[in-house]
């Protein structure tokens, strides 16, 4: 048990299982929709409050896992129930628990059929998401990773739009194929190390061939989740068909699982393979930034546009991850958190309009600002955050990735990374093009039609749903130091793992076994 956890209380377990237990109780005891909604909201708020303990009691001076809990789970296979967080995973737990509250608030009015089922699915989703970010045993991780698919599948499949069946199957199959390969990799590593502990995998010196195969298997799982070009096409479909809260959690947290996977598995476990594949990752990231931005520009469906913009922004994350500099890595993490706020908020914005108009088509709108001035201001703020204006959290992330890329060691890429930084900087122009063009067509102008004329401005519930996101975007934009503080030590340790080769020790180990 970690000494720093003064309460000596299983905070992680509590925050993982509180939503699940609450879901069970709600299923068994409550029938009235109103009661179900409020019970769910209270559960998410309490969960969030519990997770804030992680933030308050976090020790920023160590890279070791904190708030650890370790029990044997399936003894015969040496699988443990091992939880713990470091500076890399902790922010995501808070992000998850916070976004879950906002998701539940957003669903208060727009979900009308089978409210109970929806709320239960969401609570279970929260359980699995927090589980993913706190698991330190790879089988436990895999369990949560796969379990997450089920509530998400249900949320999109039941409460989704017209084309939801196609979207869910596509989403499910894509992610499943990737995950199966990851499972193979985990089993293979177990075969080598005799353990399922992620920390043991990190310590074990796999030889180069092994690393390549493990890396590729992980890549299949994580690249689909991020998503990276060319396995990204499930995302726009899933987003457009998902209900608002589904999109929010999908963009806000689910996408980060892929990037988190790269940080937790690929870099420290297979450092040499990670270095070997830098050109691939850089290439795909740049494709995401430039190609996807151009595609985003041409979208006629608002949700699809925001979805493509998410892919483009995740390009910065994957770019920063594979630059092997502290600044770029921290930038990537800041970008992930920031994107969690900004993309979530943009999907909420689209959701607010969808609730009124039942259309996502840009052409159906025009002049919304005339009827919804407060909403127009809120959306403007997030539009500007999406184009990474200084003062917004996204600026910090993107500029750090760019700076880190510019200074990166060219040895991994085999050419100057300055060009990479310069190409990525084009995002400054392209993100402005697609975001502002959409904003202009939807929000500005004369009142487009009678239905826009009928729109009502944000009500109190909707307004307060945006307030925390506004505050966080600005807070991180102006004062990112607290978050950077949490990242520094863990990222420095990760960087050390990622840049030191395992091949020397692997060769040594092979040699000594030969000698035997």
């Amino acid at each position, binding site marked *: 048990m970690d000494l720093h956890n003064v309460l000596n209380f299983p905070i992680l377990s509590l925050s993982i299982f509180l939503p699940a237990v609450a879901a069970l109780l709600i299923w068994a005891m409550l029938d009235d929709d109103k009661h179900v909604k409020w019970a769910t909201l209270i559960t998410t708020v309490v969960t969030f409050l519990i997770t804030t303990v992680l933030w308050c009691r976090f020790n920023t001076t160590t890279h070791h896992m904190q708030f650890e809990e370790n029990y044997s789970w399936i003894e015969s296979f040496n699988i443990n129930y091992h939880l713990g967080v470091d500076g890399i995973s902790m922010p995501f737990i808070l992000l998850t628990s916070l976004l879950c509250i906002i998701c539940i608030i957003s669903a208060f009015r727009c979900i009308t059929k089978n409210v109970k089922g929806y709320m239960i699915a969401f609570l279970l989703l929260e359980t699995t998401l927090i589980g993913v970010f706190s698991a330190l045993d790879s089988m436990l991780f895999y369990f949560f990773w796969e379990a997450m698919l089920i509530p998400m599948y249900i949320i999109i499949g039941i409460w989704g739009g017209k084309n939801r069946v196609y979207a869910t199957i596509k989403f499910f199959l894509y992610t499943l194929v990737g995950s199966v390969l990851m499972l193979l990799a985990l089993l293979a590593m177990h075969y080598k190390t005799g353990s399922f502990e992620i920390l043991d995998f990190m310590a074990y010196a796999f030889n180069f061939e092994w690393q390549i195969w493990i890396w590729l298997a992980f890549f299949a799982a994580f690249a689909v989740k991020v998503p990276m070009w*060319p396995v990204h*096409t499930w995302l726009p479909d899933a987003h457009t068909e998902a209900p608002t809260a589904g999109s929010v959690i999908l963009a806000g947290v689910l996408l980060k699982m892929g990037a988190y996977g790269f940080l937790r598995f690929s870099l420290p476990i297979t450092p040499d393979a990670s270095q070997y594949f830098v050109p691939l990752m850089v290439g795909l990231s740049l494709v995401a930034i430039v*190609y996807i931005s*151009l*595609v*985003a*520009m*041409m*979208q006629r469906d608002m949700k699809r546009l925001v979805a493509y913009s998410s892919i483009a922004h995740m390009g910065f994350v994957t770019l920063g991850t594979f630059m092997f*500099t*502290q*600044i770029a890595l*921290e*930038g990537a993490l800041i970008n992930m958190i920031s994107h969690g706020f900004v993309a979530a908020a943009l999907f909420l914005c689209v959701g607010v309009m969808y609730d009124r108009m039942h259309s996502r088509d840009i052409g159906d709108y025009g*002049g919304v*600002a*005339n009827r919804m001035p407060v909403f127009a201001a809120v959306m*403007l703020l997030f539009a*500007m955050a999406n*184009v990474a*204006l*200084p*003062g917004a959290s996204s600026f*910090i992330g993107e*500029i*750090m990735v*760019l*700076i880190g890329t*510019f*200074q990166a060691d060219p040895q991994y890429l085999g050419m*100057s990374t*300055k060009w990479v*930084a*310069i190409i990525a*900087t*084009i995002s*400054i*122009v392209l993100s*402005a*093009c697609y975001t*502002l*063009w959409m904003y*202009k067509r939807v*929000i*500005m*102008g*004369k009142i487009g039609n009678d239905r826009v004329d009928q729109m009502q401005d944000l009500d109190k519930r909707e307004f307060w749903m945006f307030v925390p996101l506004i505050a966080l975007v600005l807070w991180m934009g*102006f004062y*990112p*130091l607290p978050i*950077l503080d949490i990242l*520094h030590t863990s990222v420095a340790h990760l960087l050390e793992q990622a840049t030191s080769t395992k091949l020397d020790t692997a060769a040594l180990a092979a040699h000594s076994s030969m000698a035997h």
Partner: protein
Amino acid sequence: MTTEILDLNVNELLLIPALPLIAALISGLFGWFLKEKLSHLICILGVVASAILSVHVFCQVVYFDMSFYGNFWTWIVSDTLNVPIGMMIDKLTVTMMVTVTVVSSCVHIYTVGYMHGDKGYSRFFAYISAFTFSMLVLVMGNSFFTLFFGWEAVGLFSYLLIGFWFTKESANVAAMKAFIVNRVGDFGFAIGILAVWYYFGSVDYATVFLAVKGFVAQDIHMYFANMEVSVITFICLALFVGAMGKSAQVPLHVWLPDSMEGPTPISALIHAATMVTAGVFMVARLSPLFEFSEVALATVVVVGAITAWMCATIGLVQNDIKRVIAYSTCSQLGYMFVACGVSAYSAGIFHLMTHAYFKALLFLAAGSVIHAMMHEQDIRKMGQLRKYMPITYFTCLIGAVALAGIPPFAGFWSKDLIIEAVQVRDMGWVTSFAEFALITGVFMTAFYTFRMFYLTFHNSDRVDPQVKKQLHESPASISLPLIILAIGATFAGLWGYYSLGMAGTGAEAFFGDAIFVTDAHNPLITLEAHAASHHWYHFLLTLPFWCAVGGIALATFMYLKKTKYPAKIAAMFPWLHQFLLDKWRWDELYQIIFVQPARCIGQFLWQKADLGIIDKGIIHKGVVDHILAGAAKMRAMQTGLLSHYAFAMVIGVFSLLTYLILKA
């Protein structure tokens, strides 16, 4: 996080940007709650107080040689990256601060009359106050990051204010265009920042400026597109792309004329006096960098000269009163850049200051006319307005002569200084070209200014009878700022030239060490030597003066005497006239080479690559169909006939045996 306090009062300095910000927040967030009066009162108070404090700081810095350099806040820390936020207050900064806050105060007061009764009244005040804050951050900051922060923030408010009347389609398009074109510039700016940080390991001015000389001594080069480029040149050119965007220099000038879709007060404040001059300020601020790159300086001169000349030609034929002045702004910004490029930075900043007064004056006068004409902007539908609006007429006349460059009005002193500096400094064909462009530019400037002036206030009366019924002089809130700015437009040049010594050189000169010039470059040294032998009537001997007089004379001849000539001349060169009316067809060119290709590529990548190849081609045809087909075949195999299964088993056993035998 060292905060060194040198003389100047930190709290006072912090208040200067803080007051407009607080005012903006109050009237922006609570505008729905406050009455019109309260909300404009708060903003005016905030900005005027900020102006008074700026003047106070100006006096302290100029007359008592105080200064300030220090950090207040740490923005980003990561590894070796450390981005503090602080201020650098010297003579260059205070000149900008006073210019910004004074013009902003005038515009705030003016807005009371101009925007009266508008639905977004308090929103407008919130925007212009917040803009003032951003501009102050831009000029007062002490690092590339604060510069960039202010840079983007002024861009944001420019976007919001151009699109202020958001039900107007043309305004929305113009706002978006302004933002995106500026972002193209910011692309360069951002790369410049990356390079500065990479090569100097710091982003604050003091450290970078200190490091430059050592850096130059080592002559560090980098490879860019297989060309060997000096690092300083690369940084300066990248940053200059940013300056070109913000200061509307060719080829990134296309957004500025369109920005005239916004309300006139902001055309005066943002698109004439302050924001668009940020690029010039940047080059002057970064003079310690630019001075060490001949290539960058030459680029600045060429771009400035082309813009000065080209935009002047476009201004000759425009019929929208605001667009004439807007092209004039582009053109005058070109003059400022040329000054910076020939290392006469102080002349550039001097012109920036005088230009701020007389151009804001011209815009506000134009706004007064537009207000009286019920939002008619076409000078072909005006004429003889001097009878109805005498104050506007006289103040506009002062603005016009100041712009044309007639002594003793403000524009003459600074413009004359720039042209003399170009004549003295020898950079080969670059300066010869610039000299030609600027001197012919003076002629055109005088001509288009007075063309606009005569068509509006003199010439024949072409006003719509409906409008004429209620033509009247504008209210005091509009005429008062006109008068204040007219005083500035009259005396700012004399004051700057004689009292402050903005034309001087060296440490004892006005800007002192705020601007760095290598002695070998400095054209002002030579000028100073010349000036000693000059009499007060020296200007009578200079070519620019006579060009200005000639321009005015020609305009007088064509628009007061022989008023049929302009149409005749236009008919003689229809192609040229149309070409100029179409603004050299830049917009059409950009449609063809950027906008349409981007859309086509986007559409292609989406429909063909994403949906066509990846989804349909690979996933559906390549994977899903095969799986489905495979499943169908597998289904067919399960026929239920025992003979089929037995046959398969026999084959299987046979193959296995064969394999084992062969292996043995």
